[in-house]
């Protein structure tokens, strides 16, 4: 099987996560064709940063797979350390998936930990991850 290997970055962890969300949807469809008509609340948690990224991306994948949502714009507001886990809250904007409008690329089977990396660099945060296709 092939994979989509993604690098996403932003000036903060939150902004980098938001970019990762775009990359997930761009693997499946054309995100520039999405009209941000609805807003969804997004929450995720993880016992470490990698699990948080995994769970965040899976939450978004399920929005597509179960709710049929095409999401193209993400705002990750806060990532903070809870008692036992890291917690994320944010929003996602989009509309119901329409293959005619948003196109069809490739299905994503799942998020993986394979070669996952979260790096804090001098002026940005860089995320690397692989999607199983």
């Amino acid at each position, binding site marked *: *099987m092939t*994979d*989509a*290997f993604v*690098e996403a970055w932003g000036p903060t962890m939150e902004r980098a996560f938001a970019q990762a969300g775009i990359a997930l949807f761009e693997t499946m469809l054309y995100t520039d064709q999405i009209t941000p008509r609805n807003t969804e609340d997004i929450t995720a948690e993880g016992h470490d940063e990698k699990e948080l990224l995994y769970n965040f991306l899976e939450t978004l994948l*399920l929005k597509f797979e179960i709710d*049929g949502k095409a999401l193209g714009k993400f705002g990750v507001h806060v990532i903070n350390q809870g008692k036992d886990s890291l917690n994320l809250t944010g929003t996602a904007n989009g509309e119901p998936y329409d293959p005619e409008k948003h196109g*069809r690329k490739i*299905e994503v089977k799942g998020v993986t930990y*394979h070669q996952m990396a979260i790096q804090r660099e001098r002026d940005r945060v860089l995320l690397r991850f692989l999607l199983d296709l």
Partner: protein
Amino acid sequence: MRLIGSVYSSRFQHPIGGSILKMTTLEQHPGRSSAHIPLEKIAPNIWEVPTSYNPGMKVPARIYADDDLIAKMKTDMTIQQCVNVAHLDGIYKYSITMPDGHEGYGFPIGGVAATDYNEGLISPGGVGYDINCGVRLIRTNLSEEEVRPVLPKLVDTIFNMIPSGLGSKGQIRVSTSELDKVVTDGVEWAVDKGYGWPDDPKTIEEGGCLESADPSKVSNNAKSRGAPQLGSLGSGNHFVEIEKADKIFDKPVADRFGITKPDQILILIHTGSRGYGHQICSDYLRVMEHAVRKYNINLPDRELAACPANSPEAEQYLPAMAAAANFAWVNRQMITHWARQAFEKIFAKPSDSMDMRIVYDVCHNIAKVEQHKVDGGLKKVFVHRKGATRAFPPGHPDIPAQYRDIGQPVLLPGSMGTSSWVLVGTPKSMELSFGTTAHGAGRFMSRSAAKRKWWGADLKKSLEARGIVIRAAAMEVVAEEAPDAYKDVDRVAEVSHQLGIGTKVVRMVPIGVAKG
């Protein structure tokens, strides 16, 4: 990090925020190889990494490959991953990689590991995301000559009747409670509903139903994801192909499989458990992550995440995995039904008059409870097969009665434009590989092929120039699945044949392809 090929790269690049998306194969990631690992060639096509290489290895790592295939494996993490699997507690004999092996997540694709039924570890990564991804072969009594004139219409009809591609949903809608029934009863459910013939389950691995399935161990997310997708092909490397028998190598066995003449038309279906299985894998990888900490399991790679066979976590995962396996068999059953209907529509006669029987159906992503000879005694084990096919010898009780005296049919799908194979299981496979052989072409892409792969439309043209009709939901997928991207399936079949873990029966070539 070097960009190999980037379809969607530039759109999001921005100095302060952005992302690059590379469609790639794991092999292409630079700076990672298995070339430094000491390999001994212990016999033709048999390679081993001894346990002395790493003190954590419980058994040697063993790879079945010819010189060229092993050279390719050295360029990525395949051999390292085979070594990693050798670390699993309770593993017997050796961690095995098949000739079509390539880098996967945790386990290599083409990885086989038998772990002790009581004391061993169970690893969902040793099964994979697409639980019971597998292959089904249906025969017909039609010849190429009869099919060729209507081929484009036939492929169109198949493509239109069988939902495929991103977000594809089945033609029927099952509620989640009906879905529980589907995965409990397996293929019998489909036959009862009219999606098949009463004899169909007889020539499916496990009769198309693992009795251990328990939908109460499956999350609501998996059920919601899976329910609308029952009876759909999906995307990626999944397909329905119309094949013709190209060359018969073992006439007596081929006759028994109902493949009697070159140019006979066959149908090959390759798909799995869709979002249902993918979500079960993902859900239980999370459970195993916690189990690794809970049971203090030492693993060389996070993605090998596993739990002890006798733990509550295993007691939940295995029935959930079995439910996904049953989902996949029903999925292939419904696709079979529509493929028969497509033939009926085009040839205006009933499918039974075209002898459209299931030759066999194999799963190549699964963990099974089996008995195997280890150190002279019989042991009950969990055989993890991730991108590997069971290949039981003549006489084995788990083979359908009608094939029991000749051995289990094994199906090796190639890729668009290349051949696919029917092999047969042998006693040697019990000795060398826990009754297992390869699962297909495996993936290998050269850099030049990676560049070519973006030209889906050109590829379609070149296949059609060779008489192969293709219909696909997305041209990106056609490009992704370029034949060049795969290890030569003929070479893989040859290694299996020479080792005797699955011997050659029939080579098929595609004339029509419908894919996601």
